[in-house]
């Protein structure tokens, strides 16, 4: 359908895009040379606009002019033109689709009133005034002779602000959001007005002015309503369909983006098919579906959609402007009339300004934040005309509109003038007027939370004051959305995620990335390794991240490893191999680099990671609530199993989380405990339990080792199931000294990505990381919880496999030792019962003091001693939390 997609270029967009699109036309001229030239030109243009801050659209038009001139000279006749079919079917939809999909929805609806006013009333005003005034000028005899209808038609097509041009220019200017959304929203919506007016006039012209009756005018108005509202509805319908489809694409991630593109495009085509406003349809399809689609599709698909859309849009934009330039050169297509050109220019500028001022004056009666004079100036000045107008004028039928050639020339001039002159000068103007610019700042978590609170406050105040204002309705809509729409359109797993939590994760990811960005040196240098408060304060920007890293860093690396190792059936073999290797190979430090990049690239398995994190998270929590009854439960397992499943059924409604399929198996042992919990523990516990309840009650011995291995991998601490795995661990222990580098490598690479994951899980799990390095700390609640996890799962017999698996997968020197160390504590805790948990939280150290764990502590000590390794930096961070910071870090672990 969309040829553009298949032609997706590689390399420099600007250079290759025109290359592709022009190919068809250029082959006439022994293409290759031309293509080459064009490519060179484009590269030149993009470079030029990069360095000289000239709007790209201007450069492109200029380039088009040059190209057109050259071609014209060579062939005496312009072989190619901006073809309306191409424009409306392919170029425009890509731009509009991009605009609609990435439209900031909240901002758009916050300013919907203003946008609609400007788009409808403003455009009508412009169209009529320009048309009538031109007719007046014609009456004065200054310009070309044409009928009133012709002028009105021309006024309609020339008055619409063009989304392509506005987007191209305003995106570079970075005016503040409100201003941008009003101008841009207007340019999108007024398409409906323009197109309808255009069509109505065309039909009038066809019928002949004399045959138009009064009823026809009303028909025109009615058709406007139908076209715009119908288009919007079509768009919304497709938005729902699209969102609904993406709900079920979990198994076919690869074609997720395709669905998005096709359905959005289909919205456009369908609307076009019914002669409704295709632009409106596509815009609203994009706006409507985005929230749900973004939530449903995978991270990779999200990125794909984003960049593909943006790329296609810029390609289309490039082509349009180039063609504008090219077709301007062909003299045979237009006829010059100075009077018409000048008066049109004056009229559109004047009426635009008048319209803006008048409407703003009216709007400011109602607006919470009035638009001030500066805003009005920018809005008037930002009324750029563009390719839409040009395409419309080219579409005119010369038989019916005799003055078409004059109109074409005038349109070209107007487009050139607005895009080139105004586009070039609007930036200095904005600077000079000191228009508030948009900041690229991302909201902090504080802002996210408080703004949410503000929304609630305002809604409440409106309710109290008894008026059904904007906030009242927005709240109503949100309720509706939450209760029905989201339920229908979102995946179950997604539906229950909180937006705020998502925001929180995003922020954390950003932080993590920024830390990494600040140079590997941050990670590798002594800074991070400084656990002290001093380091924190000295790098204020990094502070949060640093802390997080400190708390979470090690856990992250575990995650990735888990991912790699978990699902494999060959785990055992690999573990063996790994042990041998780990024990005997020396790992050079430079592996850092290569590992870093590789992992960075390959981190993609978000889905699995998510599941992983989720599973770990749940398990941690479960464990923390759980006591040592595991064995007893085992006996009753079959019984309990049933119960568990029942409970699961019950709780399904409450907890969205339990969707992970393979988890179930692994967690099976836990299920029984859950039953016990139910009475005593709050609902939360129940949820957790539910999550883990195994459907497959009869778990085979084989499964267990896997699960154990998983545990190990996820949380190094848990991994070292001390006593049982001794044999396998031996190689490890011997190799401890050499191993750390490997670990560190993992950690460093993974951190950015993992942090995301890590955030998903509670901080507590992250803290577990910290525990490995510092033997004294293992009793940390989190750690203990983890160890507990490992504990119950491992029967002595199975412990071996699990332990080995953990060690192998983790390849974590630190983990084995810490794991061993902790494992005992975990057991103790289990035995002590859930009650002890609280104590632990309060007094982490106390737990350490408890009787030595069954497994031999010496290895732990040994490993601890040896840990001074390159990779250790992370660990040291984690391990030695500043005394002041400790309480904070620990908190998250509490349940």
């Amino acid at each position, binding site marked *: 359908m969309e040829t553009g997609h298949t032609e997706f270029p590689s390399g420099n967009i600007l250079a290759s895009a025109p290359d592709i699109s022009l190919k068809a036309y250029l082959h006439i001229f022994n293409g290759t040379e031309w293509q080459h030239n064009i490519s060179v030109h484009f590269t030149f243009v993009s470079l030029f606009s990069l360095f000289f801050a000239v709007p790209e659209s201007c450069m492109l038009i200029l380039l088009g002019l040059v190209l057109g001139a050259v071609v014209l000279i060579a062939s005496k006749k312009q072989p190619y033109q901006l073809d309306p079919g191409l424009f409306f079917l392919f170029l425009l939809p890509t731009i509009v689709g991009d605009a609609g999909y990435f439209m900031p929805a909240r901002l758009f609806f916050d300013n919907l009133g203003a946008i609609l006013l400007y788009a409808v009333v403003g455009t009508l005003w412009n169209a009529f005034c320009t048309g009538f005034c031109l007719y007046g000028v014609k009456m004065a005899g200054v310009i070309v002779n044409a009928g009133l209808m012709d002028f009105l038609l021309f006024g309609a097509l020339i008055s619409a602000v063009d989304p392509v041009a506005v987007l191209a220019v305003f995106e570079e200017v970075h005016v503040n959001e409100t201003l941008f959304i009003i101008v841009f929203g207007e340019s999108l919506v007024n398409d409906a007005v323009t197109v309808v007016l255009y069509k109505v006039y065309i039909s009038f012209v066809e019928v002949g002015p004399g045959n138009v009756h009064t009823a026809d005018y009303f028909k025109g108005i009615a058709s406007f309503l139908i076209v715009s509202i119908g288009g919007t509805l079509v768009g919304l319908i497709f938005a729902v369909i699209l969102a609904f489809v993406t709900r079920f694409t979990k198994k076919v991630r690869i074609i997720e983006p395709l669905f998005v593109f096709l359905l959005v495009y289909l919205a456009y085509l369908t609307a076009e098919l019914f002669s409704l406003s295709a632009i409106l349809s596509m815009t609203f399809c994009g706006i409507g579906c985005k929230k749900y689609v973004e939530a449903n599709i995978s991270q990779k698909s999200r990125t794909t959609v984003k960049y593909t859309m943006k790329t296609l849009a810029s390609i289309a934009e490039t082509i349009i402007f180039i063609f504008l330039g090219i077709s301007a050169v062909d003299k045979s297509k237009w006829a010059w009339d100075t009077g018409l050109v000048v008066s049109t220019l004056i009229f559109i500028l004047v009426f635009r300004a008048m319209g803006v001022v008048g409407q703003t004056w009216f709007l400011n009666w109602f607006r919470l934040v009035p638009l001030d004079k500066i805003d009005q100036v920018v809005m008037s000045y930002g009324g750029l005309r563009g390719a839409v107008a040009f395409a419309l004028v080219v579409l005119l039928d010369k038989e019916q509109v005799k003055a078409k050639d004059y109109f074409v020339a005038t349109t070209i001039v107007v487009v050139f003038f607005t895009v080139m002159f105004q586009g070039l000068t609007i930036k200095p103007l904005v600077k000079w007027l000191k228009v508030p610019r948009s900041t690229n700042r991302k909201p902090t978590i504080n802002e996210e939370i408080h703004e949410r609170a503000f929304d609630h406050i305002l809604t409440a105040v409106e309710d*109290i*004051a008894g008026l059904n*204002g904007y906030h009242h309705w927005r709240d109503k809509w949100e309720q509706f959305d939450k209760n029905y729409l989201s339920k229908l359109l979102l995946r179950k797993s997604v539906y229950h995620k909180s937006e705020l939590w998502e925001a929180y994760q995003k922020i954390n990811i950003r932080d993590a990335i920024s830390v990494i960005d600040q140079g590997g040196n941050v990670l590798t240098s002594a800074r991070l390794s400084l656990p002290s408060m001093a380091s924190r304060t000295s790098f204020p920007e990094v502070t949060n991240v640093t802390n997080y890293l400190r708390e979470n860093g090690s856990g992250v690396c575990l995650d990735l490893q888990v991912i790699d190792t978990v699902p494999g059936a060959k785990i055992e073999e690999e573990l063996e191999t790994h042990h041998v290797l780990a024990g005997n190979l020396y790992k050079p430090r430079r592996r850092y680099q290569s590992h870093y990049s590789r992992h960075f690239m390959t981190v993609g398995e978000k889905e699995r990671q998510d599941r992983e994190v989720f599973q770990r998270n749940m398990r941690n929590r479960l464990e923390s609530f759980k006591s040592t009854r595991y064995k007893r439960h085992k006996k009753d397992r079959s019984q309990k199993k049933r119960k568990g499943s029942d409970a699961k059924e019950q709780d399904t409604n409450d907890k969205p989380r339990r969707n992970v399929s393979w988890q179930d198996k692994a967690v099976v042992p836990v299920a029984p405990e859950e039953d016990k919990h139910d009475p005593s523990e709050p609902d939360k516990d129940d949820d957790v339990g539910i999550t883990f309840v195994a459907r497959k009650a009869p778990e085979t011995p084989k499964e267990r080792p896997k699960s154990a291995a998983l545990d190990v991998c996820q949380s190094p601490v848990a991994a070292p199931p001390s006593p049982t795995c001794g044999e396998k661990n031996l190689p490890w222990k011997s190799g401890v000294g050499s191993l750390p580098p490997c670990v560190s490598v993992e950690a460093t690479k993974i951190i950015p990505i993992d942090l995301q994951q890590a955030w998903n899980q*509670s901080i507590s799990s992250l803290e577990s990381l910290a525990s490995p390095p510092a033997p004294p700390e293992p009793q940390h609640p989190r750690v203990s919880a983890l160890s507990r996890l490992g504990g119950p799962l491992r029967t002595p017999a199975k412990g071996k496999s699990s332990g080995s698996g953990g060690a192998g997968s983790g390849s974590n020197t630190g983990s084995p030792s810490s794991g061993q160390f902790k494992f005992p504590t975990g057991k103790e805790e289990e035995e002590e019962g859930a009650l002890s948990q609280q104590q632990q939280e309060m007094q982490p150290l106390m737990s350490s003091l408890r009787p030595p764990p069954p497994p031999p502590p010496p290895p732990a000590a040994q490993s601890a001693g040896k840990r001074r390794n390159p990779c250790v930096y992370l660990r040291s961070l984690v391990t030695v939390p500043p005394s002041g910071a400790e309480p904070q870090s620990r908190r*998250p672990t509490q349940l």
Partner: protein
Amino acid sequence: MGSTNSTLLKIPNVEVLMQETGLKLVAEENCLNVSPAHIIRLHDRFKALDKEGRGHLCPHDFGAIKELAMNPIGDRIIGAFFSPGKETVDFHTFVKILAHFRPVDKDRPKEPNSPEPINSRSNKLKFAFQLYDQDKDGKISRDELLQVLRAMLGMQVTDEQLESIADRTIQEADLDRDDTISFEEFRKSLEKINIDHKMSIRFLR
């Protein structure tokens, strides 16, 4: 205008207010700056809420507002209408509280001696702040923040997630590292936000 005034006079509270001290009316106009039409409208609303006609509102009068019951932090907002120790709120206070949400009018002449208008940025913030700070110790503690978060997020997130959000929030805003958010810190953390946009309602303009 005459009719407006006469309607205004029909409102007992306003009359009382005017009679009591001209000053209060001045305060009404200068600080709250709610126009007469708005006062009348609010008074109608006030009377509608005050079903028993006692001339003041009790918490349960607010509780009767259906939509408010759906609001996750509705009870806190109701609480904000009642000054500590008081069980009722009269019309004057009612209007005064609502006046927090008037948009700031920029072109109003600044009188050097006039008190800070009730709809100033910091007063708006204070109003929001006190919704968090339930024990009125001037600080948002971790627990207080957690409560609000829990109310706003409901069952969507686990306690652990809530806690990590809360921790992060405090960590981010907490400048003096006392693990609480003071008003000053609160203000700082929202420095970049256009409070006038986010904490204003058009109807009081």
